[in-house]
């Protein structure tokens, strides 16, 4: 029955999937943004990430935190996206357009400018720094980031320090 329009999962998995989307959807959208060149590509990548989560969810036994699980998949799909589309890994340029931003009055405009500036700066970082910064900005701990990337916590700290210096100077340039 589920083959042609029924539920995607047995109900408990369906609930877990929905809860994951609810909790991490916005984070995933932002992660997709650091790997994609434009909003359309970003939407496609986000879709790919969510589909990959759906496929991996039945095998998830809680060996790591749910957040680590979700971010691993997101960054891995991002890498696949970069490899398939042969995107540059050292520098990404292009005007970023934020779609579906929550509508709010004038003060949102200034905030949006700030967001854009920060996003553009993050996108200009080389891939290794970009991954660490994105996860730090999403609130992951060093340990979680180390788990996602398969590097040591010390390495995470070192990359973050360097990335912050670069971000500072990139934001100043703007």
């Amino acid at each position: 029955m589920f083959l042609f329009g029924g539920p995607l999962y047995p109900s408990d998995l369906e609930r877990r999937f929905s809860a994951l989307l609810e909790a991490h959807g916005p984070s995933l959208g932002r992660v997709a943004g650091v790997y994609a060149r434009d909003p359309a590509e970003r939407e496609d990548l986000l879709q790919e990430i969510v589909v990959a989560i759906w496929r991996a969810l039945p095998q998830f036994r809680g060996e790591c935190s749910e957040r680590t699980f979700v971010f691993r998949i997101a960054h891995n799909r991002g890498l696949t996206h970069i490899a398939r589309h042969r995107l540059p890994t050292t520098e990404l340029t292009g005007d970023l357009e934020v779609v579906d931003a929550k509508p709010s009055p004038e003060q949102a405009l200034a905030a949006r400018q700030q967001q854009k500036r920060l996003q553009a700066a993050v996108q200009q970082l080389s891939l290794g720094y970009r991954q660490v910064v994105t996860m730090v900005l999403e609130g992951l701990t060093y340990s979680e980031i180390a788990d996602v990337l398969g590097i040591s916590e010390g390495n995470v700290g070192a990359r973050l320090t360097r990335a912050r210096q670069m971000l500072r100077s990139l934001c100043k340039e703007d």
Partner: protein
Amino acid sequence: METDNELETWRLEWQAEYFVPPDLRKRVERDIRRHRHSFWASVAVTVLIGGGTTLWAAVSGESADIPVLAAVWLFVGITWATSIQLERMRGSSKPLAETTAAFLEFSIHSCRVRRQGIAVAAALYAGFFSFMVAWKYSQLAAEMPLDVWTYLTSGRVMTQCAITAVLAVIALGRRRRLDQELHHLMTLKQRLG
């Protein structure tokens, strides 16, 4: 302390962005169903080709059609067995949640297996195509005198050759894309390693 404030400010700015297309859930469900349908589509093609040929052979009742029937089922069987084996080698049933380093290794391996898959498919196709051309020639030659060259340059064979050429171009294009993807994955591995 100052630096922590800086990070906190960036974090707030960063997380203020909301990018979730309203139809995301629907798109994902559509995609998932398409994945499932593609498997059943392969089954349907197998049943159609295998079943169709079997039916045709049964209706014609000609013993000469038996080699074709055997060749079709052999081709179908090898194709399925090879696909399953390649999928296992590719490790696509492994969970997608791995470390970035492990995932890159897996992607490189998967890319290589997909390249092999193209070569295997080409070899299978070439074998089946050659068999069918030879079988048809033997059938026609049994009915009337037929020069091999005349047969090979006939409209029917030329059309099949043209289709084969188009398929070859598609396969080469796919292989080229995989080569580029592999190269890019190796670069990523080097850069992130």
